[in-house]
């Protein structure tokens, strides 16, 4: 499945679940916040969310900031 993840093209090999995508990219589930097509997807909705072809996914983590 073709996705855009953090602005880059990504060929997703898994089942289209959020968990599969995070695992594929080596992201820690507990440390990651997510948007799909501009909408924030809270972690309690991840299981119910199925990614679709050409979805735009943003994966965010905490970094230092003032």
């Amino acid at each position: 499945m073709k996705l855009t993840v953090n602005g880059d093209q990504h060929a997703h090999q898994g089942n289209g679940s959020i968990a599969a995508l995070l695992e594929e990219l080596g992201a820690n589930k507990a440390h990651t916040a997510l948007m799909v097509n501009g909408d924030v997807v809270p972690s309690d909705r991840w299981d119910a969310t199925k990614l679709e072809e050409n979805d735009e996914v943003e994966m965010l983590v905490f970094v230092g900031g003032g």
Partner: protein
Amino acid sequence: MSDKLNIGNQELGSRLFLGTGKFSSRQAMIDAVKASGTELVTVALRRFNREQAEDDLYGPLSELEGVRLMPNTSGAMNAKEAIRAAMLGRELSKSPFVKLEIHPNPHHLLPDPIETYEAAIELVKQDFLVLPYIPADPVLAKRLEDIGCAAVMPLGAAIGTGKGLSTAEMIKIIIRDANVPVVVDAGLRAPSEAACAMEMGCDAVLVNSAIAAAENPTAMGAAFKTGVDAGRAARLAGLMPTSEVAVASSPLTSFLSVDD
């Protein structure tokens, strides 16, 4: 004496808030946070990058006991982006605090008051404790208080400049009129300036560059703690009135005068 700071329904034992940017290493940041005694630190959001996994601060910060996280909305150019950033930040922080900052011009990083106001309205509706980073504008501060912001955070000087309390006179007006905590955010360089802000009646200060860019960030974190504590204690003690003319501290009796 108990001197807790209440922001919304949250109680804080320290009046020094710390930013976590610009530190030379993750360990330097953690050491400075501990030395400062802070209970509230800001964090930013960035795209996940597997190659820079060590930049992910979630793990080390969540291990710090008694320290709550306040995600900022840095990078947001307008209200819509800031609201989105706040929602993403809350997903990770599990904290109601948000530092609302919208500064579209990278040259001066001064806050956009109109976008900030619009974002604040929505974030208050969504039950955030909104702490907006704002120009030291008493009218804007009051308007943000009126719509339910939990505190206001006027800038002392532009972010990262170390120019100190260049807006002191405006901040004094904000303090005089405010019914929510006033936090000086940005511009401070020296612990004496933090003490000065607290003596003026600020409820807290937020410091990042002054500590992160110090030669010894841990020692500077401790120094800012001392400065904030001293300034707060002085405020509570009540400063003496000033006078235009000298007022003697010692008796001016003339027993030393020599008669010819």
